């Protein structure tokens, strides 16, 4: 440890702040290691493997493109991606807050937004391979052409990004983020969104389904946005969610 020069005035002391890119990298690495627990990864991989198994079963029974798109939309985009994103996105900051290690990032000379971006990046890093590989594999195994594969890949990437961002915010905001996240996925997106176009607009599933429909031409309910809207609006929503998470992180009490 270096010795403090007690004769030095405060004005002489260099002001130290962590550059934003460094803060993102430091947060990314620590959160990635925090999130990487064997049990969590095995459980979520098992969940994600439901998609290729279902795709293979459908493909081996001479399925139509219509059936394949419905399968990807319901299991891949409607269940696997949101649930895995909820677990990792919510835990990215939520776990640090719950186990009281957040103070090691909070009480530091660095801005709040790089912490949120780094944490969300770590969640994205784990969510993307665990969900995208099985879901795209499911699209391939249905054997219904390349349009569904491209659509699944684009919709999956957009879905992972927006769900991770939104659930990172949820994890920063709420202690019981898993309960509220599941309520959103299963109740709001599963049922309430079907009540009308107004409520459907705040269902992220509608945007990812729209991308899939745009790429395949299949008629699917809750999927009437253009490709541009299906991509741009979720990305904007992700930015807003991360900005809100950064604001919330700065405003909340830390244990």
């Amino acid at each position, binding site marked *: 440890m270096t010795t403090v020069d*007690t004769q030095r005035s405060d004005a002489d002391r260099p002001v130290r702040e962590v550059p934003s890119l460094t803060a993102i990298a430091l947060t990314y690495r620590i959160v990635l290691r925090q999130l990487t627990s064997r049990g969590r990864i095995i459980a979520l991989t098992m969940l994600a493997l439901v998609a290729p198994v279902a795709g293979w079963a459908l493909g081996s029974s001479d399925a139509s493109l219509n059936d394949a798109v419905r399968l990807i939309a319901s299991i891949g985009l409607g269940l696997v991606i949101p649930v895995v994103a909820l677990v990792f996105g919510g835990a990215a900051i939520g776990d640090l807050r719950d186990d009281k290690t957040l103070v*090691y*990032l909070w009480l530091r000379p660095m801005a709040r937004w790089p912490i949120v971006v780094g944490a969300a990046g770590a969640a994205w890093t784990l969510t993307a391979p665990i969900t995208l590989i099985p879901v795209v594999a499911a699209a391939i195994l249905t054997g219904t052409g390349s349009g569904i594969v491209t659509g699944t890949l684009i919709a999956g990437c957009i879905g992972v990004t927006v769900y991770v961002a939104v659930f990172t915010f949820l994890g920063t905001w709420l202690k019981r983020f898993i309960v509220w996240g599941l309520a959103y996925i299963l109740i709001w997106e599963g049922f309430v969104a079907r009540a009308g176009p107004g409520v459907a607009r705040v269902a992220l599933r509608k945007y990812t389904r729209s991308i899939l429909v745009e790429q395949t031409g299949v008629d699917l309910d809750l999927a009437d946005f253009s490709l541009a809207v299906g991509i741009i609006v979720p990305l904007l929503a992700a930015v807003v969610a991360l900005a809100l998470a950064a604001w919330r992180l700065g405003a909340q*009490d830390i244990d």
Partner: protein
Amino acid sequence: MTELPPPVVQAPAPPAPTNYPGMIAVDNVSKFFGSVVAVSEVSFSIDEGVTALLGPNGAGKSTLFRMMCGLTPPSRGTVQVLGTDPRHDRAVRGRISLVAQQDALFDHLSASEFVVFAARTQAVRDADDAAAGALEAVELSDVGSKPLGQFSKGMRQRVKIASALVNDPEVLILDEPLAGLDPVQRRNMIALFHRLGDEGRCVLVSSHVLDEVARLGSRVLVIAQGRLIASGDYRDLRDLMDDRPHRIRVGASDPRKLGSALVDHGLVSGLSLDDGYVLVDTLDVDAFGRQLAVLAVDLGVRLTEVSPLDDDLESVFRYLVEGR
């Protein structure tokens, strides 16, 4: 925590913070959690050197520390550290370090990795060297590569202290840092805190153990039930505590006879009988101790128990706050 009556004992007055530019200045600070008052109208100002914050568990010490670090805002009043608000001034956080009371660490990291991480997040230029120095200061250099998950409580505590030292902070806030340490480690850590204080840092250490505070330093702040009830030199406080009436329970074969004799000899200021015991209040505990056995022998009364009932810290605080 409920509102308390004003202190009735002549405790040393807390220093007025308002016009004193201390390294930590707490001015009329209160903190509420809903209807619970965690900290109530606390004011003090401290500068370089070691200051001990003494208070029982739940007194509001950790809440006060959290406000000093900006981790939670005060409901009323202001907290300034190094002349600025730590809640909103990002740069000042690099000049403050906190050893939090909770045991939370990144258990998958080694001690060395954890302290290097702390250094990097504090924008320390040569993080590896600084981390090595900090680990050496807490005598953990030889186990730096061991995962924190395998550390004992005392070792974890020292890792937390190392991570707090790594940025060479001007203000060091330590919440019960001696918990879990063995006597040798305690002595070494106390020596370290004094060294840091002597080097010009403001070192604020909390404890709920009276004897620890005696060794930590002469400057003491006493907090109980959210209020600052005394502050000043530890020796003044110790004298104040020694002057208070002591309550002692005496078990005897004939408590009534013994009690009468104690009153006749003027050894007690108050007395009551309770199920075979004599409960006495005495202002001169030394004289009482010297004469009790002699008196019992003279009376032919057999003593079965002599137990002080108020040597614990809670009773000291109760006396300071309520005068009883």
